């Protein structure tokens, strides 16, 4: 699309990307600048996303025919295990917090950096070391336990490279813990003058809640996987009944973290959406306190629902009743967010800019993902759909439809701030639509497959399931295109994109009151906050039609 004759803007002379701390690569590998560390994370999570994506593609091709079109059963089991490990531990969990959280939290609260810049760099190195262990496991025999590492399959029976993978995830856990700690301390102590708790962007609230989960939950999964590793290496009986252990204990410990981990993935995405919606509806978000509070509520209740993964393990009926009840409670704060986002659109001035298209796609997919959680939380229904493709569809709607859509939406929203440049508008809106359609075509048929009774993790299936599997694979190829498009035009834009300027949308956050890309120190002088969040009316600096005479003044009063 050719650009209309607008005044040619230029990037600022000095910014974090061209500031030199030393020579070339070294200036990146030894940086303590939160923005550069965010980009280190961006590069490394993209590597894992790519690995996970290739594995997913192979899975879908294999399932084109009932007998399995591509690989042996051993290889198929490795494909879905490695897909899960790469995507969950090394892409989804770090994606939004470590990339956008790192980049934006100091900018949003008016700070120069995170509280512990060196620890921030350390956490990236820990991530890389953990990642190397896991890649070593993938390269030397692979991993076939499922990403859930259920014992005694993982600790006794599997012949694959379980030990390095478990160690890699154990190590990677510390990266998560340190990042969470850094965020909490930063948010508590480094807010600019006037940036009160209730003026914080909702993105920051979401990350505060996420950080709580990270530092409280991660140690448990780290220890659990270490115990499984010890049982495997030294035959210590924790989970193996032949050695006096109990395999169900592993599941309790594993899900105590791994269910809250779902909220590590989705809460930050909700934070992204809570920024995009008011910006492009150009009005204050509806129910600020309720959205902020619901993030905390999700983080807290989310710790109390883990055994809903275990309704058919033979756990006591009373435990099942309790966990089903609590699982329904955790649905309420999520519903509150959706209703508030929708209400924010009412009487807005809605632009159809690319981030908004992604945000609406997020709501659509998250609603389906969240509502199908109600099916699984239902005890009587779960005895049928547990461990079927219904579950696979449900968590992909949350983690890919929700978290990844939020991640890609966030990329489109803050890309001008990160790189200083804009990307092709029409193409990126087209990509959002392609993603939405491809995603639904891939995963919606899986709900039906699951209800029909197709169990998950099957390399071969009865022929009556083929039609829906073919649909799903067709959708996956569209979905792949939907991911390749943004990867290409965003890369292209880094060099050729139009210069964005400080605040292209415009948005109200502090991060938009500094250069794009920002200075290494973020702000020339520490900003003082005198306005309420998402307030477009009392912000003459945004250059908008403030106080435009519009109808219904009684409601429009601020």
């Amino acid at each position: 699309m050719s650009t209309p004759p607008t005044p040619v803007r230029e990037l600022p002379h000095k910014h974090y990307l061209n500031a030199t701390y030393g020579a070339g690569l070294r200036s990146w590998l030894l940086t303590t600048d939160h923005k550069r560390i965010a980009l280190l994370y961006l590069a490394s999570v993209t590597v894992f996303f790519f690995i996970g994506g290739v594995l997913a593609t192979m899975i879908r091709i294999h399932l084109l025919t009932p007998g399995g079109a591509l690989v042996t059963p051993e290889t198929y089991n490795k494909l879905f295990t490695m897909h899960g490990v790469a995507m969950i531990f090394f892409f989804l969990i770090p994606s939004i917090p470590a990339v956008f959280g790192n980049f934006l939290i100091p900018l949003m609260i008016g700070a120069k950096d995170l509280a512990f810049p060196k620890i921030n760099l350390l956490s990236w190195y820990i991530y890389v070391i953990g990642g190397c262990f896991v890649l070593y496991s993938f390269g030397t025999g692979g991993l076939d336990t499922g990403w859930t590492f259920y014992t005694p399959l993982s600790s006794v029976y599997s012949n694959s490279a379980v030990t390095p993978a478990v160690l890699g995830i154990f190590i990677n856990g510390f990266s998560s813990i340190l990042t969470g700690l850094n965020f909490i301390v930063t948010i508590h102590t480094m807010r600019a003058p006037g940036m009160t708790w209730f003026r914080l962007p909702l993105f920051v609230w979401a990350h505060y809640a996420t950080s709580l989960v990270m530092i409280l939950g991660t140690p448990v999964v780290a220890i659990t996987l270490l115990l499984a590793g010890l049982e495997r290496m030294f035959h210590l009986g924790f989970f193996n009944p032949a050695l006096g252990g109990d395999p169900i204990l592993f599941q309790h410990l594993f899900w105590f973290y791994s269910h809250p981990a779902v909220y590590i993935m989705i809460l930050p995405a909700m934070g992204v959406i809570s920024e995009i919606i008011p910006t492009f509806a150009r009005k204050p978000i509806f129910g600020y306190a309720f959205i902020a509070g619901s993030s905390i509520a999700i983080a807290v209740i989310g710790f109390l629902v883990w055994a809903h993964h275990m309704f058919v393990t033979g756990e006591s009926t009373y435990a099942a009743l309790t966990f089903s009840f609590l699982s329904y409670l955790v649905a309420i704060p999520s519903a509150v967010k959706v209703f508030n986002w929708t209400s924010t659109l009412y009487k807005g001035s809605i632009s159809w800019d690319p981030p908004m298209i992604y945000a609406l796609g997020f709501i659509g997919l998250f609603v389906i993902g969240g509502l199908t959680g109600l099916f699984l939380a239902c005890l009587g229904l779960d005895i049928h759909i547990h461990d079927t493709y219904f579950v696979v569809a449900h968590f992909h709607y949350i983690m890919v439809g929700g978290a990844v859509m939020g991640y890609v939406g966030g990329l489109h929203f803050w890309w001008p701030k990160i790189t200083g440049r804009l990307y092709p508008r029409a193409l990126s809106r087209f990509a959002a639509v392609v993603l939405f359609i491809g995603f639904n075509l891939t995963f919606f048929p899986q709900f039906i497959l699951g209800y029909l009774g197709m169990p998950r993790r099957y390399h071969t299936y009865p022929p009556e399931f083929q039609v829906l599997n073919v649909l799903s694979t067709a959708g996956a190829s569209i979905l792949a295109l939907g991911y390749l498009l943004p990867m290409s035009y965003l890369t292209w834009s880094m060099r050729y994109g139009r210069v964005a300027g400080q605040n292209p949308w415009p948005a109200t956050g502090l991060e938009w009151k500094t250069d794009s890309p920002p200075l290494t120190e973020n702000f020339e002088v520490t900003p003082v906050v005198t306005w309420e969040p998402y307030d477009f009316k009392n912000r003459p600096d945004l250059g908008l039609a403030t106080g435009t005479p519009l109808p219904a003044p009684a409601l429009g009063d601020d």
Partner: protein
Amino acid sequence: MARNEELAKTVQSQLPIYPEQASNFAPQVDALMLFITGICVFFAAGVTVAIVVFFFKYRRKTPDAVGITIEEDARLEALWMIVPLILSMAMFGWGAVVYVDYRNVPRDTLDIYVIGKQWMWKAQQPNGLKEINECHVPVGRNIRLILSSEDVIHDFFVPAFRVKMDVVPGHYNTMWFRPTKPGRYHFFCSQYCGTNHALMGGWVTVMEPSDYAAWLSGSAAGNANPVVAGEKLFAEKACSTCHVANGTGRSPSLNGVYGAQVLLADGSIVVADEAYIRESILQPNAKIVAGYQPLMPTFQGQLTEEQIFALIAYIKSLQSQPVPATGAGIAPPTGKR
């Protein structure tokens, strides 16, 4: 009406959206599914319509236009917390009713022992008849499966019955259902268990009771009768030296113990079901009967799952034997099943 049903039947046969209904649970689970789907479609459609309408109606008119601020309203927030809460409690309650029914096994069951191992299923009929990846049951009868695993966790899943249960090593899990329609139905392993997980399935054959009886007697069960095998083991493993029938041994008599309440040394009372008997064989010191010393050695690792089944079958057969006045493990008053 009939036409609608016919249409539903045609759709179902061409592109099915639910599996065949062949057990007492199937209609219950399907009704629950419809109920939750209805509520969820309502909410999803509401949100979608609102978003689409707002998206077009409030599209930005001029580049610098701002939206109209709407004051937040605590009543509205309360409304959209309370209404979903009430509806989700309805889902919870109904789901709980079905689940509690599923987890509380009725008394008059036909018991079939099922063993899962990488990557096959063995089922054993009450008369000792063994099947591999097949399981025959009579229609209209309450069937209880007693599940155990020889290696990793498996899961016995029959989509047409809408039930599944994990098969956990070191545990006895039970599941039950009442088949309502003769036929052959797929069962699957639905807990990932290693390389050939996807091949670990088979067929449940539901037969008319008379056909089932004929099938049972027609197949040569012979000396595979688990009670006989268990009695032999009971002697071979020297269980009978201590567990003397008349209650004079160093360990409690097992007459009548199955299904009864047992008073333990710590004062608590347990029901002597399969899981208790299994535990008492493998970990004798876990629960000591009141008035007895922890003398029994463990049989962990010395018995196969099938041998344990046989011993339990034998102990079950002692249910009808006379209970001695002293020396029985049963707690007074004897609460027989």
